[in-house]
């Protein structure tokens, strides 16, 4: 895994293998959250979560993340963050 999460997510809109890589990156977190449910539902839950992640990753607006100068502007109060509550 040489590529950063950033480039992977950016590309995952059009590239399915990047999408898979991102989900694999998060699979330890998924496995961890499976522990809270009963053994018999774990496989289902795992699948369910991966489907949810597909949506989350595909619909994530990478360009909405502010750059450095934009961030300083936001902190100065010159620019209102439009991502609040999302």
């Amino acid at each position: 895994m040489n590529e950063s999460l950033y480039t992977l997510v950016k590309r995952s809109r059009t590239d399915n293998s990047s999408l898979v890589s991102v989900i694999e990156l998060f699979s330890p977190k998924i496995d961890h959250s499976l522990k809270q449910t009963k053994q018999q539902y774990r496989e289902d839950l795992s699948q369910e979560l991966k489907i949810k992640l597909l949506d989350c990753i595909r619909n994530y607006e990478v360009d909405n993340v502010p750059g450095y100068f934009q961030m300083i502007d936001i902190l100065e109060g010159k620019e209102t963050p439009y991502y609040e509550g999302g």
Partner: protein
Amino acid sequence: MNDLYNSYDRSVANYFDKIEKHLQNPIIKSFLNIPENMDLLREVINKPSDASKKTLDEAFREYYFNIRFTTYLSQAIYFNAINYDKKIKLFSDRNQSILDRPLRGDQNGTLIDFLTSAEWKKGQDVQITSSNIGDHLTSQILFDGIQRLTDNQRQLLSLAYIYGMNDSEISIYLNKSQQAVSRSHRKALRKLREIIEADKEGRGLDE
């Protein structure tokens, strides 16, 4: 050379004075704690150019993105896992005869274990063929409640719950309109519920 270096540092210090309050911002703070990022910022302050600004901007964007995105996905996983559990619980509450559902209380095993056990088989030879719903009930309250319904309602419940007919089938069988059957079906169930609840309350007061 030394002078030059000092003037570099001074302008960086000036810059930090200017944005002092933002240095406490956890994102900015941790971003600048990484030496490479600090170098990028120095470069921008000392030799401002579009290219260097852009590099810093991108580095920050990527850094911030990693944090935001990871948090976002982690939370999405966490909350969806909880919701899934709730959904399962709701489903199994509404669909009681799931064969691999663990039995209630302190009994071990699942429903299917119980059904295949000898315990269950012993009582299995009793087959009730009566078409009167009262003969099929094992609950005393429900039996008493059924006796207080009208003959029509009893017949309707028998058709619905012994023969498994739906309201429109019953309406054809009884030669009534489906709406009338549905209405009296609902009314019968409501009345039974009232009787059961009144009984529960009555017992609650006695204890």
